[in-house]
């Protein structure tokens, strides 16, 4: 059980459907449990939509996604040539403890990613954001 997926998508929200289809197909071949499929779809959606909406500029090209599905861990790499953005440090932590009336309705996406992944590494390389995420497969 080890397979690699490489996917290049454009910078339109409609591209989400391509990510979902590619992940569903890989998950079926690799027999991922439902919670892993959910988690990978969520992480890829939050990060790519963030790039499309906040990191975009006229020259934003393709977003490259690689997923390495191994027995012990799943590694995701996301690369884009958008504005420099390190989700580990450049996204404010949302208030998740306040009362209902005080909660802001935004900023949850990157928080979900940070909480759901076991490892997260960022580097800016040759004008591109390169993000590596790891989720260990336990139990």
């Amino acid at each position, binding site marked *: 059980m080890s397979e690699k997926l490489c996917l290049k998508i454009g910078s339109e*929200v*409609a591209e*989400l*459907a391509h990510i*979902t289809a590619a992940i569903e197909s890989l998950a079926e071949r690799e027999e991922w449990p*439902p*919670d892993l499929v*959910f*988690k990978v*779809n*969520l992480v890829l*959606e*939050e990060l790519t*939509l963030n790039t499309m909406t906040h990191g975009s500029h006229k020259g934003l090209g393709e977003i490259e996604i690689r997923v390495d599905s191994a027995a012990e861990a799943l590694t995701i790499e996301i690369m884009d040539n958008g504005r420099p953005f390190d989700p580990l440090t450049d996204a404010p932590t949302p*208030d*998740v*403890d306040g*009362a*209902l*009336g005080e*909660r802001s*309705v*935004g900023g*949850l*996406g990157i*928080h*979900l990613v940070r*909480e*759901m992944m076991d490892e997260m590494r960022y580097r800016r390389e040759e004008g591109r954001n390169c993000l590596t995420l790891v989720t260990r497969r336990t139990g």
Partner: protein
Amino acid sequence: MAVNSERQNGTLIARVDGRVDGSNAREFQTALESSIDSGDRIVVLDLEQLSYISSAGLRVILMVAKTLQRQGAKFAVCSLSTSIREVFEISGFDRIISVNASQEEAISAFKDS
């Protein structure tokens, strides 16, 4: 994605079916808001048939919860899958929105309060 609703003894039950992501969250918001009447006093959102939700959909649920609080209505969600329950917990939604195992539990929790 579809939202179907019905009223039972003064409680609005809204069921969401399918996936809610960044590409259809606006439709989800329109569908959910249009199913709620300003006179509703108890609203239960049943998530049993919801297979996926991202922050775009969570944002809609939070906005609806805020609106209902302002109109003095009670709001609960029920029948969350393990993954959806996890995103609710990470987002801190379980501390501001009543999360229940079933519709019956949600309704009886309100009647007891």
